[in-house]
């Protein structure tokens, strides 16, 4: 197990350094692909030895605690330097605060290193590692042709790719380390690495706009880090150890709730919940693989992972109810904001925030059905959102726009990518796929909580609206005749198709996933929620027949595809334009006998759901809810 952990955490760090110093593109790409392969293999091999825990003493010959401490301070000083370089007072304040508190914690509070074990892997960590390693590696693989194209497009003479791949690989290692950490100081260290990576990657293109957004991300994430370290100081003084498992199992006394509430608050900033969503929206200026990896599949999942870990500790308290309502509110508000957006990446960003809010709501409701729902949502959201971001990246490079209106009729220009995007959208909102299974479970779990359930019902309806219109628009060009595929680099096809297959096939084996991997994550406090018989998840109050519905969906799909093949031989007529259509498709005879192109645009309902209109109110409401959360913990 030590070897596997080394491969998962330290190898990417080493590969990152290699990538950074290598000037040859092909060598760099091979290093990335080799690292990706090793990560996928080791994460799969981890399945057999889970659960496990251990405490390494040294890594590469040096005492592990010293290395982590030195690197931690290094990172904080780097953040401080960036704060000064970009003249941002908030970053400077938060960096100084964290340096001071970390020093205080290390040298005055901790007498001996008694955290044991340092690394703890149960099934929740395993699931996160599988997601990070597999989905993350696929994204890194796709970013090889993407960045090549990106730099050709920007006509860069000196390639910035070494920096890009170095930071991406560094990030993967840090994420793996974070979910394996039991020692909260280690977790904090990896947390800060991810903050730094996010800053470096958002500002990758080094233009004024990207730097501005990167700085905003840095100060908001640093706020999260500062809250984290404050929580650690309070925890240390209350409990005397910074051991996650111990914290979860100690009896609650004194100021115990306050640091947990602060950790939840830090989780909210990391997961870009309201009112801190602007950093995630601003981060969309980064190259799309960054958005796919950091800002939808992995980094923003740190927040939900943290709250899910703390779940058993806060079961039944006021704090957990606050988290549930806050999460549900974010789900609704982000869905409403997504309805008013026409920028494709912003729709995906708001959808990410929305789904994270739903997972927070599940974590807050804190019953075993709800936590199961949360874990299922994490898995399937990561895969599907990564797929959609990669598709949008490929589309954006081809049509040079990320606006949904410009993707109208994309099928005629990029048939396979359009179809994969439509499949991605279908796996987001339809049964029998995993995201809907999670949503169903979440609604059933939340049904005793009247506020949460009304909010979830409204949010779920809004979700359908913005996805369905996007999926419809992509196929909007009338087609008939032979099906042609477009040319894309082989690595792009490999990543898109593997994620697509992963999303669909994994949904079909979700009952097995539930019984093998999710049930073991629960401890004694939770009762088992569902039984699995012949592919049907069932409990006394509800049932979801995953395998039967999947089979029926497959049959329906095959029948529909055969129908399309028959329809390709049908007589094609132009769409109805009151009889004045001309031979050129989509045009009609207008006034003065001039041809006029018929245009239609989507309803964005910006007078109700527009970003400018809603954001202020949403931020206000979110601030009130967070205040209630912290205040209730005092």
């Amino acid at each position: 197990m030590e070897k596997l952990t080394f491969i998962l955490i330290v190898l990417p760090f080493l590969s990152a350094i290699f990538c950074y110093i290598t000037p040859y593109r092909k060598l760099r790409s091979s290093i990335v692909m080799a690292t990706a392969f090793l990560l996928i293999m080791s994460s799969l091999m981890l399945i057999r030895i889970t659960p496990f825990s251990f405490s390494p003493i040294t890594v590469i010959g040096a005492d592990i605690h010293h290395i982590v401490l030195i690197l931690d301070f290094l990172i904080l000083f780097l953040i401080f330097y960036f704060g000064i370089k970009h003249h941002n007072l908030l970053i400077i304040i938060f960096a100084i605060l964290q340096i001071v508190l970390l020093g205080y914690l290390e040298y005055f509070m901790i007498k001996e290193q008694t955290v044991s074990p340092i690394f703890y892997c149960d099934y929740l960590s395993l699931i996160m590692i599988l997601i990070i390693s597999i989905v993350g590696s696929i994204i890194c693989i796709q970013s090889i042709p993407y960045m090549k194209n990106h730099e050709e497009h920007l006509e860069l003479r000196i390639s910035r790719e070494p920096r890009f791949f170095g930071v991406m690989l560094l990030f993967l290692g840090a994420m793996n380390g974070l979910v394996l950490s039991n020692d909260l100081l280690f977790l904090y260290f990896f947390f800060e690495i991810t903050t730094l990576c996010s800053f470096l990657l958002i500002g990758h293109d080094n233009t004024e706009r990207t730097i501005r957004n990167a700085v905003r991300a840095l100060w908001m994430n640093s706020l999260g880090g500062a809250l984290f370290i404050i929580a650690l100081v309070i925890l240390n003084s209350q409990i005397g150890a910074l051991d996650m498992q111990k914290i979860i199992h100690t009896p609650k006394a004194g100021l115990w709730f306050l640091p947990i509430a602060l950790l939840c608050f830090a989780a909210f900033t990391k997961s870009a919940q309201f009112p801190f969503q602007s950093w995630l929206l601003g981060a969309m200026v980064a190259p799309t693989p960054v958005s796919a990896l950091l800002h939808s599949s992995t980094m923003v999942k740190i927040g939900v992972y943290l709250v899910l870990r703390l779940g058993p500790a806060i079961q039944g308290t006021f704090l957990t109810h606050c988290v549930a309502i806050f999460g549900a509110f974010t789900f609704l508000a982000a869905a409403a904001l997504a309805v008013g957006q026409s920028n494709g990446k912003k729709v995906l960003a708001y959808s990410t925030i929305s789904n994270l809010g739903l997972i927070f709501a599940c974590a807050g409701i804190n019953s075993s059905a709800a936590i199961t729902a949360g874990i299922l949502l994490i898995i399937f959201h990561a895969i599907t959102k990564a797929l959609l971001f990669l598709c949008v990246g490929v589309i954006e490079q081809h049509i040079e726009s990320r606006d949904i209106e410009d993707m109208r009729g994309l099928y005629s220009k990029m048939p396979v990518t359009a179809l994969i995007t439509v499949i991605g959208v279908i796996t987001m909102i339809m049964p029998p796929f995993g995201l809907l299974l999670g949503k169903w479970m979440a609604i059933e779990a939340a049904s005793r909580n009247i506020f949460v359930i009304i909010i979830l019902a409204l949010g779920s309806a809004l979700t359908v609206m913005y996805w369905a219109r996007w999926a419809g628009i992509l196929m909007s060009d009338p087609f008939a005749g032979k099906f042609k595929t477009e040319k894309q680099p082989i690595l792009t096809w490999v990543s898109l198709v593997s994620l697509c297959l992963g999303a669909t096939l994994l949904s079909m084996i979700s009952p097995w996933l539930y019984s093998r991997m999710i049930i073991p994550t629960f401890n004694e406090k939770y009762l088992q929620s569902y039984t699995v018989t012949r592919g049907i998840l069932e409990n006394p109050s509800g049932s979801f027949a995953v395998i039967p519905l999947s089979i029926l969906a497959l049959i329906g799909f095959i029948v529909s595809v055969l129908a399309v093949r028959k329809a390709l031989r049908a007589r094609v007529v132009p769409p109805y334009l009151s009889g004045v259509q001309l031979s050129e498709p989509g045009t009609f005879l207008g006034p003065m006998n001039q041809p006029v192109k018929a245009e239609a645009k989507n309803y964005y309902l910006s007078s109700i759901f527009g970003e400018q209109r809603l954001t202020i109110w949403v931020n206000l409401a979110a601030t009130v809810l967070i205040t209630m959360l912290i205040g209730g913990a005092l």
Partner: protein
Amino acid sequence: MSMSMQILLVALGVVAGPLIGGLIGGLDRIITARFQSRVGPPILQPFYDVNKLLAKEYIVVNAWQAFCAYSYLAASMISVALFFLQSDMLVIYFVQAVGAIFLVVGALSSTSPYSQVGAHRELLQMLAYEPLLVLVIIGIYIETGSFKISAVYSWDKPLLLKLPFLFVALGFALTIKLRKSPFDLSTSHHAHQELVKGVTTDYSGPFLGLIEIAHWYDVALFLCFCSLFWATNIAGMIILISITYFLEILIDNVSARMTWRWMLGNVWAIGLTLSLVNLIWLYQR
């Protein structure tokens, strides 16, 4: 339930769904005609219509429409079959929503502005009724303790007595789903046009026939949902559905089509308030 029983129920659902939907559609047209001092078509008229449509020439605007029409039909069929299997109501709701989404996606695949605007109005209609439907299902769960329909049938008191406001909310959803005024924005039956035929403008021939059959399945499903509110007694069930449907036809004939803002505002304001009141009442017990 044994396997053979399940297969029998599924077959019953698949066959009975369009029969119920079609006959009620025919009855609907006759009663509407009588309201308008006309005689009206024979009761089997919807079946003649669909037969004729299925036998027409295959013409398409976009071959993708074929996929969407068949998927809509498949989803509606599966949702009715699940109802007859007395399965989980929330799953039935989500499966039915799949069909509705495919109808919209198929309409968006044509570039005609009538189709496009009709598709968006259909999305807004779905936005209006979906939360109410979820809340009705939640209300039934609170009362009977289970999401499964089998629990409703084993409940000894009629649900209408405890969930009257939720029944009104379901009535809103039913009106929108049946495409009755004032909520017939996206497409309406037969001669009441605004956007030519809205969502179904560019569907024709066999695909239009399939959409019509899928619509019958949806009508059957929603009326079955209404019937759950008096599940203790067959006579009571029939009386409840008859009164409800008669009121729907009445409302259709006396009201005019309204705008989507009016629909969204009113359906959410009234529907959500009534649902909230009823749910609070249920929680208090």
